[in-house]
């Protein structure tokens, strides 16, 4: 005989609870085991212990309200199906609860005793099927990503060997070539490069989708990055007799971005612009302060090419999108470039869009946040400002020589965390954050890494990854202390070699989340 189904009923109304009790009593002995609790807090504690098969949840508890009760229940036990109990006039709320993930709703006073067990079993079965489908979906996605990543990695080595030997021949190192042979090899070389670019795009997309794209926000000079990108593509532009120019509009403010990623975006956009501009045309790149938003810088790439169909300005950023005009399309790659740009811009807190009229050239614009403490921290903080609980802040300073923390801070609290961080580095499992703060856990873990000491940064990054995998609810931020130093230097005239107080960062975080930091824990690793 199968085990009885463990039903948890959370209902504060004695009359409603009694009715349900009686309905369950009529069922065959041993088919259901009912636990009845009155409060949400008790229910959460009970759910966290495990063993519940299904939850019958009243949406009007004294310590829980409406949809919030459903969310809390699901946070406590994501694998337990929920049926909400509502009043006669609350069907709209019940429907919302189902959108939040509840399996079903029962209207109090209208529950038929014969239908109750069926409703429970349906809910459990449906939930199981949903989870199975989700598991299959996730597995398939992971497999696809792994497969793509593996294949593109493996394709690189032989392609690299082909590239090396073709260039050896092309440069006449293997002996003099006839002009004809030289031309033919040029075609081989062009195709090899195209293949390399496609494989790089493919790898990049698997990184984007696998969430492995590393973005290091730091104090970045856009002017330098633009100059680099322009010099990289000047040759391609000249070969097509296209004038590639830049307009940097005087002194540009620094941005909070990842220079490698901005360079990557610019190269994709400039390369596209050159591709879609006929010989003799022009491609211009301009950077200027955003007219509406003083907090951002806008970069524009303008060409004199065929322009963009207004109906397509959104779609061009879709994955695998390719221009449909056969005269222009030719063989142009996988259609991943603009998709990669969109992702890279978004992850740096910017926006990208296209404009321009067909036949009169295209403009691709994107924004980057200016370099400020706020923008530096916002990525690490995420939406923590919207969480209802106070924030527990843990700051770990890794491998610093610059003395970012005060001596007092170093002495305080550091022992337990140091041990923890070391375990995190050396063991791959069983690392838990110590209990902190009123909610019994840390909400925000902040790592500050100094790049000036060997390995500080990669050490911090490894810890960040480990925490990310272990506890998705925990926000793990990483900021390079060199960035904070340059910010302090720019704004407060602090000499980069001076000590910068931990309090300054804590205060900035405090101002942003606009709430008390419930506790601050500091450690140097």
């Amino acid at each position, binding site marked *: 005989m199968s085990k009885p189904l463990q039903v948890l009923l959370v209902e504060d109304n004695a009359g409603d609870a009694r009715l349900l009790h009686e309905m369950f009593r009529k069922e065959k002995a041993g088919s259901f085991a009912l636990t009845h609790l009155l409060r949400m807090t008790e229910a959460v504690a009970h759910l966290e212990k495990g063993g519940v098969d299904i939850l019958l949840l009243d949406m009007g508890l004294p310590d829980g309200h409406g949809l919030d009760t459903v969310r809390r229940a699901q946070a406590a036990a994501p694998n337990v199906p929920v049926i909400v109990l509502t009043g006669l006039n609350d069907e709209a709320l019940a429907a919302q609860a189902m959108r939040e993930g509840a399996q079903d709703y029962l209207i109090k006073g209208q529950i038929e005793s014969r239908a109750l067990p069926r409703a429970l079993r349906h809910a459990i079965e449906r939930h199981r099927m949903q989870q199975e489908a989700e598991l299959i979906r996730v597995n398939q996605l992971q497999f696809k990503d792994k497969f793509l990543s593996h294949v593109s990695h493996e394709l*690189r080595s032989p392609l690299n*060997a082909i590239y090396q030997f073709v260039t050896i021949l092309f440069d006449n190192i293997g002996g003099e070539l006839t002009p004809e042979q030289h031309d033919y090899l040029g075609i081989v070389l062009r195709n090899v490069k195209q293949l390399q670019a496609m494989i790089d795009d493919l790898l990049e997309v698997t990184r984007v989708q696998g969430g492995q794209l590393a973005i290091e926000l730091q104090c970045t000079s856009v002017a330098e990055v633009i100059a680099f990108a322009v010099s990289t593509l000047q040759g391609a532009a000249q070969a097509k007799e296209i004038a590639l120019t830049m307009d940097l509009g005087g002194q540009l403010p620094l941005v909070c971005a990842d220079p*490698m990623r901005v360079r990557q975006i610019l190269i994709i956009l400039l390369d596209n612009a050159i591709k879609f501009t006929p010989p003799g045309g022009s491609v211009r790149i301009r950077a200027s302060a955003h007219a509406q938003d003083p907090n951002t810088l806008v970069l524009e790439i303008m060409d004199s090419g065929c322009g963009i169909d207004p109906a397509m300005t959104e779609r061009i950023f879709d994955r695998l999108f390719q221009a449909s005009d056969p005269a222009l399309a030719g063989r142009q790659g996988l259609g991943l470039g603009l998709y990669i740009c969109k992702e890279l811009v978004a992850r740096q807190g910017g926006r990208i869009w296209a404009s321009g009229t067909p036949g009169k050239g295209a403009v691709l614009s994107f924004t980057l946040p200016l370099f400020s403490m706020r923008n530096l921290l916002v990525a690490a903080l995420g939406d923590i400002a919207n969480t209802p609980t106070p924030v527990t802040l843990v700051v770990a300073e890794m491998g610093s020589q610059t003395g970012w923390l005060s001596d007092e801070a170093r002495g305080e609290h550091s022992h337990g965390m140091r041990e923890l961080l070391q375990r995190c580095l050396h063991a791959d499992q069983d690392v838990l954050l110590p209990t902190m703060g009123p909610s019994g856990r840390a909400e925000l873990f902040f790592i500050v890494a100094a790049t000036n000491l060997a390995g500080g940064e990669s050490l911090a990054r490894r810890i960040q990854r480990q925490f990310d995998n272990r506890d998705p609810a925990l926000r793990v931020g990483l900021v390079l202390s060199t960035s904070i130093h340059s910010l302090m230097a720019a704004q407060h005239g602090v000499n980069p070699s001076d000590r910068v107080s931990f309090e300054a960062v804590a205060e900035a975080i405090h101002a942003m989340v606009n709430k008390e930091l419930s506790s601050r824990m500091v450690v140097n690793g």
Partner: protein
Amino acid sequence: MANKRILIVDDDPDVRQAMHIRLKANSYDTFFASDALSSVTEARKQHPDLIILDLGLPGEDGYVVMERLQCHPALAAIPIIVVSARDARGNQDRVIAAGAQVYLQKPVINAELLAIIRQTLGEPEQPGDAGVTGNWKLLAG
């Protein structure tokens, strides 16, 4: 003047051969190793002017090679250019900390590699080098 001598450490024979041809055409003498152990042995035997080192080697990797070389006072001073397919992030800093001069990510552009070899060996720049190493400095910075 005698040619400068370069030790190429890579487990892919095609990569070794291509690099050998390219370097010979630029008047460098080359010799090879394909794993961590033989690269330290070769370095001791040959005392090269420069080592071009891949990180991904069978068994012990390029980091182990650098660690071993640092232990030999006579070998610790040999400049190292690391050329690897591994992600520059996370490796660039580590490689420099381990004693290398430069980290280059594969696939390497020949003009770039040659310019950096000349720079590392303190040889005179050639036309076009400044652009390449200038860019490289920006990347590294």
